[in-house]
Structure formats: C-alpha cells, structure tokens
C-alpha cells in the first residue's frame, strides 16, 4: 500500500479508505464530508455493474474502485471476463457499467465510452511472456524479446479485431503478423528446445500464444500448444508445475493474482514486482509496450446522461 509512486498520494489513498469506508457503512455519520458519497445517493449507487466474478475480490476490482474513487455500485452482476456476455449485457442495458478490456473491438463497434482512470486503480497490463526458467535459453529469449519489441497496443487491437471481427484463424493472423514485422525468417536459435505453449480462452491471448509458438517453431524449437484453457486458476498451476512452459500474460493481472496486496501501477514497477512475485522456476521475459488494460466502460447514452468522463464522476451525487 505504501509503495505507491507518490508518497502523498499513498497517504491520501489510505486516508480515503478509512473515511469512505465508515461513511458508507453508517449513513448517520455526517462528519465525512469530502467530495465522495457523503450526502445522498451517488450515480454509482443507482448503477448495476457487470464483470467477472473475480472482479468482486480482486484488489483492483470493486475494492479498488471504492478505495481510489469512493465509487460503490448499487449492484454487481456476474458476467464473463470482458467477453460477449459482458458486452451484450451493457449493450442491452442489463448492466449500466462494465469491466471490459481496452483492446476489445466491441468498445468501438458499440460506441462504448471508457471512463478515465486518473488514479491508476488498474495497474499497467503489459503483455509479457512468462516462461519456465530452464526452457529460457538465449535463443528462446532473443526470439521472444524480438516479438515483445515489436508489439504495440494498436498492433494488439488490430490482431484482436482480425480474429474477432474478421473471423480469421488465430494461427494465420499470427503468421501474418510475424512476417509483417520481419520475424518469420527461419533460423536455428531455438533448436533442440521443447516447449508447451498455453493460452487462456479469449481470442487475443490465443493469437499471442500462436505468435510465440510460430516464431519459436521457425527458430527450430519443437512446440506443443495447449490453447483455450479456461481461467487463470486452471492454467497457472499447470504453468507452475511445468506441464506448460510458456504463456502470454498481462503484467498487472498476473501480479495481483500472485500477490493480492500488490499496489504497483506503472509499467516498470509492475514488471519489477512481478519478477519478484514469480516462483523460482518461472521468469518473465522482456515486457512489450502493448497493453490490454482493464477499463470501466459505459454506453455513450449513459455517459452523456450523467456527464461521465472519469471513474471518479461515478461518485458524484445523482440528481
């Protein structure tokens, strides 16, 4: 908690936690004041929020929104992890705000509005390969670092949109991206290495895993893939026990998964904290600039109606 970048910011956040917590628990406590929910109902209290079940318990989930912005939603509805259920629930008005990932083409397609996160409640989410240490030979490292160096947030959105909107095959999209970025040339850098590459079950993660797999194959590694594995609870133990060797991860989420109390939020801090939090048999290779962050989104109509621009606006009193 005290490892935030700005010491004063940290103090304020800690203080706010105490204040808003008692303010919301006992309605007759009028000494809280401040900009948050002191008097009357907030906009958020009239909202139903949609997100994955883990959003309830994650440090940067509902707790983080309350701690950082004093935002408490009236109701939480469990949807999926930024997938079709969440998007459709928001689109059809079953939820008023939702946790969606920034690279999701559905945001643009539906004209959703991403609420700004000035206090960095959501940590940096750089795409980073997590690999079994013993398999990270120099050749494997160079190959994967080459990928991370070329991967950008815009490029990532583009990949997702090819798979999700244009329905292209993830492996074809992966090969296309590698050759576009001059990374598809055959070599022997990873010769003799045997790796099992895994991915979670959403299109972006599958494409990333395919990119790693195809690039390493081109460098002579013998690759097995286990794609579309369900949640992190399912695949992380496999990664830890060595039945998976390589996985495209997101620095912020994997960090908070490993260390519930982690508070780092800037890309470099998150990365450093992640290296420290990983078990000794795993390591994070160079992170890429590409980020796929958690966001809070609302529909355009909702944003206009309540004048919402940042997450903090949700804590304003409703009219």
């Amino acid at each position, binding site marked *: 908690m005290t490892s935030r970048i700005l010491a004063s910011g940290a103090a304020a956040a800690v203080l706010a936690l105490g204040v808003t917590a008692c303010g919301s628990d006992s309605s007759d406590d009028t000494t809280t004041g401040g900009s948050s929910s002191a008097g009357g109902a907030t906009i958020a209290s009239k909202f139903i929020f949609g997100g994955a079940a883990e959003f309830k318990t994650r440090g940067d989930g509902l707790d983080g929104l309350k701690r950082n912005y004093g935002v408490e939603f009236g109701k939480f509805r469990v949807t999926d992890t930024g997938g*079709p259920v969440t998007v459709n629930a928001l689109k059809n008005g079953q939820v008023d705000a939702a946790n969606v990932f920034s690279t999701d083409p559905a945001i643009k397609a539906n004209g959703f509005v991403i609420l700004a996160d000035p206090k960095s409640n959501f940590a940096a989410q750089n795409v980073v390969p997590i690999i079994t240490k013993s398999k990270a030979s120099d050749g494997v490292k160079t190959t994967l670092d080459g990928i991370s160096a070329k991967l950008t947030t815009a490029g990532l959105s583009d990949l997702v949109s090819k798979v999700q909107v244009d329905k292209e095959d993830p492996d074809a999209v992966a090969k296309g991206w590698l050759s576009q970025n001059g990374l598809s040339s055959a070599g022997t850098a990873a010769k003799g290495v045997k790796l099992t590459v895994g991915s979670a079950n959403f299109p972006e993660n599958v494409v990333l895993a395919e990119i790693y797999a195809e690039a390493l194959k081109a460098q002579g590694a013998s690759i097995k893939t286990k794609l579309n594995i369900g949640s992190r609870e399912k695949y992380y133990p496999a990664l830890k026990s060595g039945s998976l060797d390589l996985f495209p991860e997101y620095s912020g989420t994997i960090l908070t998964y490993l260390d519930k109390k982690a508070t780092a939020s800037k890309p470099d801090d998150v990365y450093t904290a992640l290296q420290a939090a990983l078990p000794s048999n795993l390591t994070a290779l160079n992170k890429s600039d590409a980020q796929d962050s958690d966001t809070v989104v609302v529909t355009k109509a909702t944003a206009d109606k309540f004048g919402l621009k940042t997450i903090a606006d949700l804590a304003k009193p409703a009219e």
Partner: protein
Amino acid sequence: MTVLADSTSSSPLHFAQYFLDHSSEDLRLLWSHTWLSVVPVVIGLLIALPLGWTARRYRWTYPPIISITGLLYTIPSIALFVMVPPLLGLDTLDPLQVPIALTVYSVALLVRVVADGLASVPEDTVQAATALGFRPVERFFKVELPIAVPVIAAGLRVAVVSNVSIVAVAGTIGLSNLGQLFTQGFQLSTPDAYYPPIVLGIVLCVLLAVVLDLAVVGLNRLLTPWRRAVPS
C-alpha cells in the same frame, strides 16, 4: 490464408464451409471427443459388472448399490471435472480427468442395467445350466451374461450417447474436444452472434452419437446370434 467472404459469414448454414476451412483441427477435436466418449463406457461397464452381479446375487444389496451409484449421476459434470484433479493429485490440465469423471457417470448408469439384465435371465435357464454341470463362474459368463446382453446393450446406448454430450462440457475448461467449438463460436460472438463453429459442433456431436449408438446396436446383434436364429 486468404479469407473468403463466404467463410466468414456468421450464418448458421455456413458450418460446412467452416469445417472445410478448419478440417484438420476439427477432426482432431472429433477424434478426442470419440475416445473420450467410448473409453469411459468400456471401463464403466467393467466396474459395473461385478457391482451389478453383487446387487443381483445378494438381494439385500440391491437398494443401497443402485441408489448410491444412481446418486453419482446427479453430481454436476463441471464440478466433477474441476474436483477430480486435486482429489487424485493430477495436473490441472491432465486429459485423464475427463475419462475418470465420465467413468463415474457410466458406472452410475450401468450398474442398474447390469443387475436388471441379470434379473431378466429366466430362472429355468439358470437351473438348466446348473443341471448341465456349469459351475457358478462359468455359468455367469457362458449363460447368464450372454442372455443379459440385450438389456445391458440398451443401457450402453444411453450411457454412450449421454457421454457424447457430457464430454462437450469439458471443452469449457480447455480440454480438447468438440465442446471447444462452442467456446470458440461464443468467444467470436462480438459484436454479432457467430454461429458456424457452434452449429458444426452440434452436427458433429449428433453424428458421433448416432454412429456410436449404431455401433452398440451392431455389437448387440453380433453377441446374440440366437435371437436371429430363433425368432421369439
């Protein structure tokens, strides 16, 4: 690969095109779906035979054996898939967790069938066999079991077809089978519904169930030649 406008259509009728575009992957899923459906029934039958025999031989064991194994069938499949690896100390991605869970269901369905099948053997037949000098074990395998085959086969048809549908559930936790086609179609269903992989999954599951069902029927005919020789 160039993507033809045709193959990206989200119309349910484009499942065939989707299959052609991804045939090697889809056939791989079909193959693992097939063995995942069949192997547990075979193992389940091997476990159900002694249990069913016990329930038949010692009548007082019939109610507890049948109700306990029957209850197993009510455990939700997803719970079983998730619980099997930690309980047995398997890796969370071990493909064995699915056949183990499905074996539980097959046993649940087959114990009653085996017991009832053995009960369907006419008492006269058993006595005649004993009179002819068959010892109990020999009599069981050479007389009672063959005569019980039609009843057991009826149960096997139910077990194998229900397995085809339960296996698909394991697709949602990342195990390779036709269920993954449903996850895929669902994941690609933003911004608009995308049906081809989902419809393809249904079509392949139904075809697989029909083929396996016919296989059991064929096996039943093969094992009971007397039924064709002497029309009853």
